[in-house]
């Protein structure tokens, strides 16, 4: 009964233990970012609003706050999502992808190119957007061979459900190094990351 009410109109809950759950989720994202292509399971979850996956919700709860403007794509830009993020994170929502610290892509097929987001500057490459892309699969797409920092002999990522030309965008994004966005792919309870330092082999 309560669940139905929450799904309809009410506010969904955040983390059960905001402090420690945030720490666990941060460590999962850090692990993913430090070892590109590694698929990391979500250590703590919150029942967020549709269409956000558990991993997307958890990353935002752990890392977004009043200092980080969040950009939502058309699919994610729903009143219940906006209300949830405003209440639990207190983050401003922005319509300008260049102003976003985090971007949430719930429907990758219709996403703008990565160059639409803040790429940082040569002086301050850290100011670029972290783009969270909810994908259909992390394991059953066309495999990409990865190389670069965090990867010993080579890593493979088989995420799928990307718009045409996405691989080109990722390769171009790496060419901008040290500028460029950092990508986090989420799917249900799992996540993986492709920082700008990762190159696509082959």
């Amino acid at each position, binding site marked *: 009964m309560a669940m139905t009410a929450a799904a309809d109109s009410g506010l969904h809950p955040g983390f059960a233990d*905001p*402090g*420690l759950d*945030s*720490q*666990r989720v*941060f*460590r999962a*994202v*850090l692990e993913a*970012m*430090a*070892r590109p292509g590694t698929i990391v399971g979500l250590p703590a979850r919150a029942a967020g609003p549709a269409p956000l996956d558990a991993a997307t919700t958890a990353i935002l709860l*752990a*890392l*977004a*706050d009043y*200092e*980080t403007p969040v950009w939502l794509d058309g699919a994610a830009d729903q009143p219940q999502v906006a209300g949830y993020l405003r209440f639990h994170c207190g983050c401003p929502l922005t319509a300008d992808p260049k102003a976003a*610290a985090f971007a949430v892509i719930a429907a990758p097929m219709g996403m703008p190119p990565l160059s639409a987001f803040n790429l940082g*500057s*040569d*002086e301050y*490459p*850290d100011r*670029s957007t*972290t783009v969270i892309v909810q994908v259909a699969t992390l394991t059953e797409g066309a495999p990409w061979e990865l190389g*670069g*920092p*965090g*990867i*010993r002999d080579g890593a493979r990522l088989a995420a799928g459900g990307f718009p045409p030309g996405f691989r080109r965008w990722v390769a171009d994004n790496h060419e901008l*190094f*040290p500028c460029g966005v*950092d990508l986090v792919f989420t799917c249900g309870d799992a996540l993986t990351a492709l*920082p*700008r*330092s990762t190159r696509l082999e082959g």
Partner: protein
Amino acid sequence: MTAATGYNFAYLDDQTKRMIRRAILKAVAVPGYQVPFGSREMPLPYGWGTGGIQVTASVIGPDDRLKVIDQGADDTTNAVSIRRFFARTAGVATTDRTEEATIIQTRHRIPETPLAEGQILVYQVPIPEPLRWLEPRETETRRMHALADYGAMHVKLYEDVARFGRIATTYDYPVMVNGRYLMRPSPIPKFDNPKMHMNPALQLFGAGREKRIYAVPPFTEVRSLDFEDHPFAVQSWDQSCALCGSTESFLDEVVTDDKGGRMYVCSDTDYCGRRRDRKEAAE
């Protein structure tokens, strides 16, 4: 030890941790680049490891096991205080053993025992900017990093060669990370520089007073600057450790009397102590 009450887990408030965590993630994505962050006032003075403590406080969780070393030693004032700080404010387990620790906070050494995947090494950094003594203006050094304009550092090393016949820098020896950013490894002896290269552990650097965080992800290329005709080389000693007999570790010179007596001992107390334990067990 009982955990202190009235504090947030690991002392820092959650908003500060989020800000530091975001800085760490960007630092990992751009290896060697110094990310500015809002360094907080800590209950100990700048210069005592406030940067490292803030990084550790933002990373650590209840399941972690913390080791803290100061110049390689687990039992010096700074190491003891920082270890106790986290035992009290986070209630985490602590250890002296390098391979048992999930997080190792260090001042000025990398442990002799090789690190493993999944471990995090947190460095306390006094001056993060490798070009600072060559160019005092932050605006200029920032541009030099943007343009990868590191000629000045090569000139400095060359002046060493011209004056002394060799590169005279022995600690805080500059490195290139991932072929892009010039980085200060913090005042570790150059003996430890090769350990940074392709290390399986994640290396995080925190500079509290200077408000910078930077990182070297696991398996990342870290090359010490040198010249073809003056290749990088680490220190070596004629002596071996007077306590454990190691010929492979970094040795501290200890003056034992006022008649010129001295002994050389391992700077890494965990490594040295366990070598001695093993030797005793074998006898």
